[in-house]
C-alpha cells in the first residue's frame, strides 16, 4: 500500500461511503466492543506502568540501603554502636551510616505497638541505617569484620526480601503487558467478525460494485473507513471513561502503600492517548484483511 492509497482510505469521498448501505446494529456493537476493550486497556496499562514503577523503586531504593541490627545488653549497646559506626565509616562503598534515634525506632514500631511506646522499657536492638554509594561495598567482608569486633551486630542488606518483591512487581507488569496484547487481539477478533458479518450482509452490493468496475481497494476502503472510524470513536469513549476511573482512585500515599500507587503519574498520563490510535490501527488492519479475503472469493 502506498501513501496515496492509505490517504484515500481516510479522506475518500462521501460517495464511496454511500455505496454501502448504513448498518445500524453492527455499528453499535463495534462501537461498544471497541469502547469496552479500550476501557480494559486503560487499566491494564495503568497496572503495568504502576508495577513497573514499583519494581524499579524497590530495586533501586532497597538496593542502596541496608540495616545493621545490634542486639546487646543495654550497657554495651552504645559502645557497640559506636564501634560499628566507626567500622562503617572506614568501609569503602558506604556513603552514609546513621544510628536511628529512639524516636525513629519508636515510630517504626508504632504500627504494631501503638503510639506512646517507651523504648527504654524494652530490650529493643539498635538499628543503623547504611546507605551505599555508586560502587557499593563488600557485604561479606563487612559481615566478617562486624562479627569480629561487634558481636551483637547483624547486617541485613535486604536482598532476602527485595528479590521476591521485585520479582512480583515485574511479573505483575508482565501480566499487564500481556493483557494489553490480549485485549488488542480480542479487539482484532471482534472487528474481524463484525467486518465479516458486514461484508456478508453486503455481498450483493459488493457484487454490483465489482460488476460496474470498482477495484478491490475502492470496495474495501468503504468498509475499512467505517470500521476504523467506529473503533476510533468507541476507543476514545472507552479511554475517557477508563481514565476517569483512574482519576477517581485515591492518590498515591505512604499509608496506602502499593495499592494507591496504581494510578498514573506525570508523563504516564500520555500513554492512554495511544489506546484509541492503536484501536483504530487494529480495526484498520482487521477490516482490511477481512475485506481482502472476502473479495478474493469473488470474480
Amino acid at each position, binding site marked *: 500500500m502506498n501513501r496515496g492509497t492509505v490517504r484515500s482510505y481516510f479522506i475518500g469521498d462521501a*460517495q464511496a461511503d*454511500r*455505496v454501502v448501505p448504513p448498518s445500524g446494529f453492527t455499528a453499535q456493537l463495534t462501537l461498544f466492543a471497541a469502547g469496552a476493550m479500550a476501557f480494559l486497556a486503560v487499566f491494564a496499562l495503568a497496572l503495568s506502568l504502576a508495577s513497573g514503577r514499583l519494581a524499579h523503586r524497590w530495586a533501586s531504593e532497597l538496593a542502596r540501603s541496608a540495616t545493621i541490627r545490634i542486639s546487646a545488653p543495654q550497657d554495651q549497646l552504645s559502645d557497640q554502636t559506636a564501634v560499628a559506626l566507626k567500622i562503617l565509616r572506614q568501609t569503602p562503598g558506604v556513603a552514609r551510616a546513621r544510628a536511628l534515634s529512639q524516636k525513629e525506632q519508636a515510630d517504626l514500631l508504632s504500627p504494631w505497638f501503638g503510639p506512646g511506646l517507651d523504648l527504654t522499657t524494652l530490650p529493643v536492638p539498635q538499628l543503623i541505617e547504611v546507605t551505599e554509594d555508586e560502587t557499593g561495598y563488600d557485604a561479606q567482608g563487612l559481615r566478617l569484620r562486624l562479627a569480629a569486633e561487634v558481636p551483637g551486630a547483624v547486617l541485613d542488606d535486604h536482598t532476602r526480601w527485595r528479590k521476591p518483591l521485585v520479582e512480583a512487581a515485574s511479573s505483575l507488569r508482565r501480566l499487564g503487558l500481556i493483557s494489553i496484547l490480549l485485549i488488542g487481539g480480542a479487539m482484532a477478533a471482534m472487528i474481524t467478525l463484525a467486518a465479516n458479518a458486514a461484508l456478508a450482509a453486503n455481498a450483493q452490493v459488493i457484487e*454490483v*460494485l*465489482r*460488476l*460496474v468496475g470498482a477495484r*478491490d481497494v*475502492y470496495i474495501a476502503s468503504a468498509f475499512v473507513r467505517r470500521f476504523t472510524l467506529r473503533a476510533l470513536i468507541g476507543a476514545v469513549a472507552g479511554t475517557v471513561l477508563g481514565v476517569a476511573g483512574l482519576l477517581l482512585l485515591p492518590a498515591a500515599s505512604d499509608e496506602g502503600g502499593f495499592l494507591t500507587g496504581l494510578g498514573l503519574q506525570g508523563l504516564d498520563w500520555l500513554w492512554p492517548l495511544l489506546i484509541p490510535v492503536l484501536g483504530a490501527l487494529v480495526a484498520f488492519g482487521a477490516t482490511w484483511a477481512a475485506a481482502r479475503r472476502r473479495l478474493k472469493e469473488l470474480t
Partner: protein
Amino acid sequence: MIELEDVGYSYGGGELLSNVSVKLAPGSFHFLTGPSGAGKTTLLKLCYGALTPSSGRVLAFDADMRGLDRDQMALLRRRIGVVHQDCRFLDHLPVADNIALPLVVSGRDMLREAENLRELMSWVGLSARADARPPELSGGERQRAALARAVIMSPDVVLADEPTGNVDWDMSTRLLHLLVELNRMGKTVLIATHDLSLIRAAKSQVQARVLRISNRRLQLAGADL
C-alpha cells in the same frame, strides 16, 4: 473487441457450451438467441469475465482474460457496458446515483459529469424518476436505467441480456432504438434475447448478425427468422 476461441463451459454438471468460437468486431451488432436455459446469460458472463471458461480462451481487447489480475479486470469492466438480465442495482441509492455508479467507482469528477448524466437520464426518459429507488420503478423503467448505467462510461462494447425482457412492444422498440443509436455511434453491441420479433424489427434498422445457441453449440443463424 471480444473474441471467444473454442470456449467450453460447464457449471459442474454436464457441459453447457462447447466449442464456441465467435468474434465481436468493432462496430458490429449481434443478437444472441436460443431457448431459455440454453446458456445465453452464461455466454455473456464469459464475455465480461464474470465466468472463466472451462476450456478455450476469451480475449478482450486483444488480451487473454485469464491473464488479467483483479484490478485489470475492474478496468476491463469499465470498457464493457453490461445490461444484466436482473438489472443489478443498489436498492438503497436513488436511480440517478445507480446510473452514475460506474463513474463514482472509477473516481470520475462527478461535477464535470453532471451534464452528461442529465442528458443520459433524459435520453432514456427517466429524468422525472431520478430520485426514485430502483424497487419503486416499473420493469421497463428499470431496464432503461440499466441501459443508461451500461453506457454512462461510454464503453466500447455494450452487452445487453434480455434488455426487453419485461416491457411491452412499444418500450421494446424504444430500447432497441437506443441500442441501435449506440451502435451508430460506433459501439459494439451484443443483445441476448429470445424475442424473434425484436430481431426482425432490428434488421430494418441495422446490419445485425444473429447467433443462436442450440445443442451446446453457437451457430450463425441464417435469414430464416
